[in-house]
């Protein structure tokens, strides 16, 4: 048992840190460190910088052009980029659809789609949720009918994150209504520039445009865009859901944001307030405990001994911590969380602030983070899963 990383791991960390210091644009880091709005250009710029280095698909094996890192290396990469203020990688391409294409796609599909994902050129969206499905993904209704060498897709997806920027979307579609709901689902890649695809924004409670409804009206999709076999999509989707589990805790972002919380509290005179400081102290213990939990999972993956079946716990605790630091930031602002000036949440805002610039986005971020206990399998669903592990 040893808490310290090995010298090799430490060296790896230093290399990543040095590279990030050189390559992360400071104006992007500034936005991340201050929770300012990131544009599509910001996100894609960083994706392409990573792509050029071969690190956008940082979880990919070498055979597909990834770096072939160990679980620990991936964690160190996530930590270094998060602490430096890099944007989170938009996961739909490199983290979500790519592993499915690698595992179940044909060599042609791999050759066709993976390079654009690896380079950050092609923006992918995820078409899973539908109105009425929510936590019950197997109830997918959006249907794809085979006509010759095409599928004709009709239906609707919703909660489609950043689909307004999407070039391609991977969808769960219903290709059969026979048998159990799970058995009639297929996994289809759809070009969003196809005729009949419409994207309608959903404005979130913080006033932001982050998610969308996507409508399919007789959209023609070449049959070669089907991943694997027809009606086996549920299997592939589950593979995707089980992939990349430790980072669902997002503990490295939490460490960065805890630092920011302390800075905000200090500036607002609340860091020396016993009551408020105690709340930060509790959160600090939460973050350390979550990090230990993550490290234990990594250690288990590394050695292959005593696997830890606690993805549900990571999701629950990680999301609760995210909500708590945004809540405490808002409370640190106190009355100054009431002004709600959208323009002041943008980088480069030239107008006057109310109180101080760093206060401007705090309430909006708090509102926005309410989603984290809902999406990716709500925390109630996660508790069902955890209970299943404990009680059978």
């Amino acid at each position, binding site marked *: 048992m040893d808490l310290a990383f090995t010298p090799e791991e430490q060296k790896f960390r230093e290399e990543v840190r040095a590279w990030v210091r050189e390559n992360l644009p400071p104006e992007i880091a500034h936005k991340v460190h201050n929770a300012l709005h990131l544009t599509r250009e910001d996100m894609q710029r960083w994706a392409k910088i990573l792509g050029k280095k071969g690190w956008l698909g940082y979880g990919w094996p070498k055979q597909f052009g990834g770096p072939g890192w160990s679980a620990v290396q991936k964690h160190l990469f996530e930590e270094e980029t998060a602490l430096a203020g890099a944007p989170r990688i938009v996961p739909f391409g490199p983290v979500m659809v790519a592993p499915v294409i690698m595992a179940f796609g044909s060599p042609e599909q791999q050759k066709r789609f993976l390079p654009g994902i690896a380079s950050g050129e092609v923006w992918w969206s995820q078409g899973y949720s539908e109105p009425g499905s929510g936590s019950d993904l197997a109830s997918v209704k959006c249907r794809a009918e085979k006509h010759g060498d095409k599928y004709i897709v009709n239906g609707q997806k919703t909660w489609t994150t950043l689909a307004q920027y999407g070039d391609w979307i991977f969808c769960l579609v219903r290709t059969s209504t026979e048998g159990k709901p799970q058995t009639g689902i297929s996994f289809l890649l759809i070009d969003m520039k196809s005729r009949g695809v419409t994207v309608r924004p959903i404005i979130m409670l913080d006033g932001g445009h982050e998610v969308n409804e996507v409508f399919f009206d007789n959209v023609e999709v070449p049959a070669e865009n089907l991943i694997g076999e027809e009606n086996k999509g549920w299997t592939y989707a589950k593979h995707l859901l089980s992939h990349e589990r430790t980072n669902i805790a997002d503990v490295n972002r939490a460490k960065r944001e805890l630092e920011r919380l302390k800075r905000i509290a200090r500036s607002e005179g609340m860091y020396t307030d016993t009551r408020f400081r105690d709340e930060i102290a509790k959160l600090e213990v939460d973050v350390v405990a979550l990090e230990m939990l993550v490290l234990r999972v990594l250690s288990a993956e590394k050695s292959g001994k005593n696997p830890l079946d606690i993805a549900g716990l990571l999701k629950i605790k990680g999301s609760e911590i995210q909500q708590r630091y945004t809540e405490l930031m808002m409370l640190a602002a*106190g009355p100054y969380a*009431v002004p709600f000036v959208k323009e002041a949440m943008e980088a480069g805002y030239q107008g006057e602030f*109310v109180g101080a610039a760093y206060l401007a986005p705090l309430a909006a971020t708090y509102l926005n983070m309410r989603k984290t206990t809902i999406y990716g399998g709500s925390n109630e669903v996660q508790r069902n899963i955890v209970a299943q592990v404990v009680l059978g």
Partner: protein
Amino acid sequence: MDFDFSDDQEQLRDAVRKWVDRSYTFERRRAITGAGGFDRAAYGELAELGLAGLYVAEDQGGMAMGPVEAMVVLEELGRGIVLEPLKHTLVTSGVLGAYAPEDVRSAWLPKIASGEALVVLAHQERKGRYRLDVCEAQATPAGAQGWKVSGEKSIVPAGDQADAFLVPAKANGKIALFLVERQAQGVSTRGYPTLEGGRAAELTLRDAPATLVSEEGLTVLEHAVDIGIACTCAEAVGAIDKTMQLTAEYLNTRKQFGVTLSTFQALRHRMADMKMQQELARSMSYYASLKLNAPPEERRRAMARAKYQLGVSMRFVGQNSVQLHGGIGVTDEYAGSHYFRKLTQLELEFGDTLHHLGEVSARMQDTAGVFA
């Protein structure tokens, strides 16, 4: 010991509720938010109902009602998440009536009661947070009866729309309370939208002409804030009630895995916990309103207890309502999310939950209870 509302109070409630249901629709509210967060016409309609004069004496055109009537009105405005700052009118008219000299009262209270003048409290300063004794604004005598005030006041409700402000400023080293008109020389405002979709402003005073309301500024300010707390508690109860209603309807309608959400025991127990907070909140809102005329020490203690409880309840009900709604709960389109924003803002008004925990702690006595 009696918590029934009188027939008159019930009629008052009905009148306000009808106005909200018919005239302050979700669409109108959305339009008001889009147009800046304050609608003088809507405020005028509230005044037409007599509500702006609720605390104003009858001989000055008001209804001379008490805290329970104010509570009834604010519950309904909270249920409709009304943006126009009637509660701030109750705050200012309440203390003007109780502390201002006769000439100030007769100059302003009739106009306040009729809705012609909107007067709001402008006490917050950048360094003050929720402390009432922090005041950098300065007042100096000017001429026979007049004063001039200089300073910066922050997050003034509907500050760029109001007609006058009640402003604490230091006169001879002691906080006094002044009335300053927005159109006067040396007064400038900078308005902006708020978290709930309403409006506030930064207020700058540069030798602005001012009328003295009271030399006992801190005493009056504390009373003003306590009226504000009682109103905020009532408003929160209304917003919580509606939130509960929306959430229960949703759970009883929405299906997942083939059954309605309301069949899941874990969600049912959450609703039971929310119901607990709802009833504790209502109880402490009653308590606040019924203690509003108590002697200052007792009144302040009661308001701290009430606002602490309401803060806990608002946050719990608001956050869990969003959670139980799932995706739809975090969209702007859905009315419930605006209730959540309202509840979030109400927690931050007149002292947040940790602030009032500190007040409760500082004001503890050997005994405790509703009557201690």
